[in-house]
């Protein structure tokens, strides 16, 4: 990179780019303990814990970003933080998966039983259209 005293930082999440720019130093909550990344850091790949990513810009200011977890890739002149937008933990994910499964099961159990309002309305519209056609045919014939 042009300036050996800074490091390029990209913080992105699935829902949008959070930060992109040069930094003098980056701190991140890696899964094995917080790390500080200075320019020309050794290549590193790590998962992140929920916490705060701090970016020190070359003019000495500091910016804070909350991440719900994710991953960080460090190359000598570049840091990429892949941030999660949601808090992640094994049991939270597990619970979410279970809820998704249950919704599907419930929906299947409902089959044939009571119909939803939307379906009933669609049925009604179909019947009304049929009636209209019958009426029109009758008019044509008479």
């Amino acid at each position, binding site marked *: 990179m042009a300036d050996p005293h800074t490091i390029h930082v990209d913080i992105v999440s699935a829902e949008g780019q959070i930060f992109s720019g040069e930094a003098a130093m980056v701190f991140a909550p890696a899964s094995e303990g917080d790390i500080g990344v200075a320019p020309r850091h050794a290549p590193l790949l790590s998962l992140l814990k929920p916490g705060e990513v701090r970016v020190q810009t070359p003019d000495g200011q500091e910016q804070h970003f909350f991440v719900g977890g994710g991953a960080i890739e460090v190359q000598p002149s570049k840091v990429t933080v892949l941030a999660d937008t949601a808090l992640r933990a094994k049991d939270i994910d597990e619970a979410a*998966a279970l809820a998704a499964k249950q919704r599907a099961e419930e929906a299947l159990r409902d089959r044939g039983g009571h119909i939803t309002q939307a379906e009933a309305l669609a049925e009604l519209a179909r019947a009304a259209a049929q009636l209209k056609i019958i009426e029109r045919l009758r008019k044509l014939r008479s």
Partner: protein
Amino acid sequence: MPGTKEIRSKIASVKNTQKITKAMQMVATSKMRRAQDRMRQARPYAEKMRVVIGHLTEANPDYRHPFLQPRDEVKSIGIIVVATDRGLAGALNANVFKQTLYLMREWQRKGATVNLCLIGAKGLAFFRRIGVPILANVAHLGDRPHVKDLIGTVKVMLDSYREGKIDRLFLVNAQFVNTMTQKPVVEQLLPIEAMDTEGLQEHWDYIYEPEAAQILDGLLMRYIESQVYRAAVENVASEMAARMIAMGAASDNAGKLINELQLIYNKARQAAITKELSEIVGGAAAV
């Protein structure tokens, strides 16, 4: 004067309908723009993710993650179908479902069973009549889907893949080509097709925290989730575009209908006046 009053009230009701369809068209237009923005914002993450996964697999050629390993025999497949929650969006959902049915039939002919994962209320309403197992479902994500609402649903499918219940995972959604065109597309999520490793930087000797396998697992999971998120956002953009067009057409049709009714009304009114006049004239002549 039979008829004129009915025609007048009919005109009023069609005008009301036209107001609604016009409003819906305008709402859909503004929502579509926002959805397109979100689509664009989701792109850098997926790109960065692909690069990091590429680096990682490059640096560890001997480690093969199950998500990257194609299976020879496909006994069962999973399909994630992204549909809308609400109707009045033209043929958008119907096209997605048709594409899904083609895909299902193609694999069923090869002897594979099909499992579905449905995103959006309309998908559930359609597919639950077919009698194919539905493993997971999520609906009412709104106009602004969030990754956190999709994690559970995607995890069910990833777990099924890991456990060998499904050997391949597909994603079907409406691709936003432009405002006029939305095309249903099928994408293979698992196993992940070879990532393009060209254009990557030189080989890096990473320090891993924790070990590489665990990082790769976390990254691949997030990668799939981001793909599904992208599909959900793109589907919202497609939905809004389709609704915009459908409601535009509906407003035009309502306008035509109003014109026709107005003509009929004028004729009926004229006929009534003529009749009245002739009655008066007839009455005067009789005296």
